[in-house]
């Protein structure tokens, strides 16, 4: 992994021709890594997720967008086994995952991060990273008592962790407690930690939220880099500039449903998406969320202008 990844400043190379047939919500993909059917989840009377059919293309960057409360995080929770759906089935890389506990999902190569960062505060940054590695012999309680059986592996893991940390510009922090990191650095750490397990699919829940613009660029580069390394990325994001910049495919959720899909430019021009962001009753409901939605709307329209 000698990715002296030259920051890909210019326009990233987009993957195209991911779908089969006419573009519509739930369209089939040429090579899907996730296929989900009839996934629903309700909280009391509220239907948080109601996805009839969706496919996530392999070795591409897919953005999952939608207004606040659309059900994006809930869908993530369901796909990764952190929450149980009311109905539905989904397949990851040919394996049915419904009912599989979250840790097994992760071991299969589908690793996620959280919207609210979960740095392990009182572990050093390096320990945070090492925890991410798969198949560690020393994690067995009895082997743990026999250090010579796992020391060599531990050294490999450490070398890999340091390399990843330096790619994410966190190597100087390796020995500090994760608690001492800034919010943006934690996002980086969480992503780097997820990569320790060499996943096939990385699911990032708002990786850019709260990250300053200077760091944003490097985060974007990292995400693009994952694709060149053969991984698939599914990420949730509210910043439309960013989505347009790196996503190969965009899936739009609103009120739990998939309302639109397609390559970024096409999706952003889609009236259904603008509708979703403004809500169908936008003339009745005013307030803070409305303002946010207006901002999102402006971004959408800007995006239109630029393209």
């Amino acid at each position, binding site marked *: 992994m000698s990715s002296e990844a030259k920051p890909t400043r210019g326009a990233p190379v987009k993957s195209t021709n991911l779908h089969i047939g006419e573009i519509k919500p739930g369209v089939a993909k040429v090579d899907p890594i996730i296929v989900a059917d009839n996934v629903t989840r309700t909280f009391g009377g509220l239907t948080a997720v109601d996805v009839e059919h969706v496919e996530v293309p392999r070795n591409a960057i897919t953005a999952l967008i939608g207004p606040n409360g659309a059900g994006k*995080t809930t869908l*993530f*929770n369901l796909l990764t086994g*952190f*929450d149980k759906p009311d109905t539905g089935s989904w397949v990851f890389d040919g394996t049915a995952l419904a009912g599989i506990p979250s840790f097994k999902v992760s071991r299969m190569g589908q690793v996620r991060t*959280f*919207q*609210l960062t979960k740095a392990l505060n009182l572990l050093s940054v390096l320990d945070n990273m090492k925890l991410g590695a798969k198949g560690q012999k020393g994690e067995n309680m009895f082997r743990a008592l026999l250090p010579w059986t796992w020391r060599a592996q531990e050294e490999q893991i450490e070398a890999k962790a340091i390399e990843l940390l330096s790619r994410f510009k966190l190597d100087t922090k390796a020995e500090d407690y994760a608690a001492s990191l800034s919010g943006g650095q934690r996002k980086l750490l969480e992503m780097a930690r997820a990569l320790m397990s060499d996943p096939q699919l990385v699911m990032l*829940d708002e990786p850019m939220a709260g990250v300053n613009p200077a760091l944003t660029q490097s985060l974007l580069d990292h995400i693009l880099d994952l694709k060149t390394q053969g991984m698939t990325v599914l990420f949730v994001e509210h910043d439309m500039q960013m989505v347009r910049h790196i996503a190969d495919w965009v899936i739009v959720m609103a009120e739990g449903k998939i309302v639109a899909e397609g390559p970024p430019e096409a999706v952003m021009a889609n009236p259904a998406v603008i509708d979703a962001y403004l809500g169908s009753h936008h003339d009745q409901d005013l307030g803070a969320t409305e303002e946010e939605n207006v901002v999102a709307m402006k971004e959408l329209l800007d995006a239109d202008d630029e393209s």
Partner: protein
Amino acid sequence: MEVTGLARKRWSRVVVALFVALLASLTFAGGAVVHADEVGTDEYDFVFSGNVKFDGEPLEDVLIKVEGNGYSAEVVTDAEGKWKIGVPEKAEYTVTLDESTLPEGVIVTEEGGATKKAEFGLTSNKTVNFFIGEGVRTTTSFLDQFIGRAFNGLSFGLLLALAAIGLSLIFGTTGLNNFAHAEMVTFGALAALTLAVDFAWPLWIALIGAVVLSGAFGWTLDAAIWKPLRRKGVGLIPMMIVSIGLSLAVRYTYQYFYGGSTRQLPGADGADIKFGPVSLSPVDMIGMGISVVVLLAVAFFLLRTRIGKATRAVSDNPSLAAASGIDVDRVIRIVWVIGGALAGLSGILFAFYRPGVSWDMGFQILLLIFAAVTLGGLGTAFGALVGSLVVGFFIEISTLWIPSDMKFVGALVILILVLLVRPQGILGRKERIG
């Protein structure tokens, strides 16, 4: 105790007994009564004893129970018909002979029936004998027993609910698992004892005074300890441990000043009035009445008043409540006062229910209060009510099948079972992830 010689023979019995012990912790199958004619005589200085005979012939395996002052023990007579039960205090206890363990056609022919009150005289020994003669047993039907116990359970559940709702409100608004709540319960009873007996105030005024003092105690605890700790940003688990330390310190301070004995509030020994299968003393009835009225008042407060709604809002989401202009500190202060007053009232009622006031009486039911709150779902006031009633009923009704010195076991097992099926409690909500 015989040891090795019999070991092999007793193997199977012991395995069975251990298995029963395990089972009893999981189900409610009680074990068979094992032979024993002396209980607690090494441990305690005061001893009741007796001799059960019919026509000069000793009766073996007759079950005798002693109850009172928060203590209960039971024993079966030996081959000579003798029994002995040690008790912790020189006080009045009720001694019951279980007529169903007498031979067929034999009953207790005494006027008061098979239950007697007994007290020690000048010595630390007291003989309690029952007149036994021929006769037909007037058995209480299972249904009647059930109804009787259910009423007791209701009464106990209601007084538990008073304490549990306070605990639940405090948990809801501050996140604190307050182990010192037990001491707030005891406080009410001790305050009532001091005012009514030591100061010889009229009972009603003393009781009202005790509830007011309990509220003030809640306010003081918040102002002196919890509010500064919240300010300091101490986490919830450390706070819980602080409450454990507080509970220890306060409990033994009570013992320091009030001693280890049990004392009675005036009016605790009213005669029972029979309503079919249910026998209640006027004090029981008044206690239940007060519980119901107070619980309704709390419900009204939470559902209808401004500050009650604010309380629920703070329980729901403190930061949102603060952002919407609710004075969270004020709400918490009020919750502590209400929690203190309810706990104090619960302590007073408990003092009549047991009956008796002692330094650790609250601690004896602390786990039941927690069980009630957890059963209902942590932090939901109405859940605490439901949980308390379930616990109260269950404890009393389970004594139809299991020995009464194990009656708390059933409630605690129920707690674990409910959590298995419904981790968020009966009325609780699930948390969100991610």
